[in-house]
């Protein structure tokens, strides 16, 4: 038997759905009401990006990526999955990248218009990450502590950031800043699929829409 073909997706997910969703809920319980601050920072980043104050808009999510790396991945998720530390490092790298882009101004799109399709996609994705994603769990019958929030939980942090980079960045910087959030959405989407959660479809659909925006904006940038 070929060793690699014998592996299935579930062989790489070492926890059950009960444990994973309890983890997300416990994060919510532990850090409440920090959610209000992180959501405010996300909303501020969106407004600043639309007003072409892109450096500051790019800087605001950076500490939140570092926070999620430590509070979610290093301190909690790594207990469940030995690969969690590596993902935490990737989130730290994303925080550093966003800070560097903000400080240097490299790759910033200072002329983005809301009527431009990739930017419109970016706005929609950002709003989805900031507003809709936290409502999914409570509207599905869960408690408010199960709400996944930008800057507290990994999925909405990645989704919102993808929306923001679609608005704020262009060229190579746009793709570079999208790699880690997009890869996390793949990992998280596949995890949720193994756990039989409909959230998998949501994340993978968001990713597909983001990819359309990324390709569209790159084509426009080359013209």
């Amino acid at each position, binding site marked *: *038997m070929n*060793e690699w073909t*014998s*592996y299935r997706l*579930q*062989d790489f*997910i*070492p*926890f*059950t759905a*009960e*444990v994973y969703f*309890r*983890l997300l809920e*416990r994060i919510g319980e532990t850090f409440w009401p920090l959610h209000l601050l992180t959501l405010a920072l996300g909303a501020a980043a969106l407004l600043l990006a639309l007003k072409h104050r892109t450096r500051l808009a790019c800087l605001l999510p950076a500490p939140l990526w570092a926070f999620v790396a430590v509070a979610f991945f290093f301190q*909690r998720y790594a*207990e*469940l*999955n*030995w690969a969690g530390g590596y993902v935490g490092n990737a989130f730290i790298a994303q925080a550093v990248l966003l800070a560097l882009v903000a400080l240097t101004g490299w790759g910033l799109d200072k002329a983005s218009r809301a009527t431009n399709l990739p930017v419109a996609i970016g706005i929609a994705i950002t709003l989805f990450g900031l507003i809709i994603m936290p409502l999914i769990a409570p509207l599905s019958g869960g408690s408010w502590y199960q709400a996944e929030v930008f800057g507290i939980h990994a999925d909405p942090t990645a989704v919102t950031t993808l929306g923001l980079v679609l608005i704020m960045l262009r060229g190579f910087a746009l793709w570079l800043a999208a790699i880690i959030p997009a890869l996390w959405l793949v990992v998280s989407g596949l995890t949720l699929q193994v756990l039989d959660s409909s959230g998998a479809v949501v994340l993978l659909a968001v990713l597909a829409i983001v990819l359309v925006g990324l390709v569209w904006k790159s084509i426009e940038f080359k013209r």
Partner: protein
Amino acid sequence: MNHLIKHRITRRQSLTLIGATLAAMMLPTAPLLANTGGIRQKTFAGTDKTLPVIGMGTWRTFNVGNDPQLLDARTEVVKAFFEHGGGLIDSSPMYGSAPDVMGYALQQLGTPESLFSAEKVWSPAGGSAREQVAELKSRWKVEHFDLVQVHNLTDWREHLAALQEMKAEGIIRHVGITTSHGRRHSEIEQIMTSEDIDFVQLTYNITHREAENRLLPLAEERNIGVIANRPYDGGSLIKNLKRRDAPLPEWAKEECGCTTWADFLLKFIVSHPAITCAIPATTQVEHMRENMRAGYAPMPSPDARKRMAAYIESL
């Protein structure tokens, strides 16, 4: 005293009683003991020690981190395991927090004498085999491990040599190797032939019986204990049977006392003469009880085993 007089035994009743007692004494005792003496035990690795035929796995099910609610829930599962005479519990540094969760459960429940602690060394966990065993002991909060296995053959030469040394020094009691999903059977066979190991852990269930061809006969020949992992094929086997509402055949109840699919699937595994024990994993106390009941007599005969396999294939 009237009631004593009323129930005085007559001469005829006395003779009947003596006759019945003598007849009972002449009956063969072994089958009776097997039916009433608790969970089945098997000797292993050429020793006179025994293990209950149903053990417990911890992959996915015991990886709950430091969640107090889930830690207590898993402790109840371990409690049910030991209440039914459970012995072998298998874990790995690859299973996230499962070794810590075992430590928590054993601290809450005390460490029962029947515990047969089985761990693994695994290269990606970092550190030498000695360092990993020392760390795992502190996570389980035990003095020693009864068995340490090389997980999925990672760097098996180096790890096995270190484990053999630790066995000679009395730090661990038995050594073994593991695989799953039918992977690397030829290498497993080579190690079973050339190395002095006490246990091999492999996937064996009613739909994955590749091990019957070479590995199980070899284990019998070499007196190597066999731990069967994935008895429910990662849960999919029993879930599919229940989802399809497949009928449990009446003859399985008559021949080997199967009243649940857990009975059917586990009895099939542990009735193979080469298998020492199966290690189903669960998060539910009720499922643990179901699993443990499968370890009680009667067990299927070789003919019944063939019939069981054919029945599953026919579904």
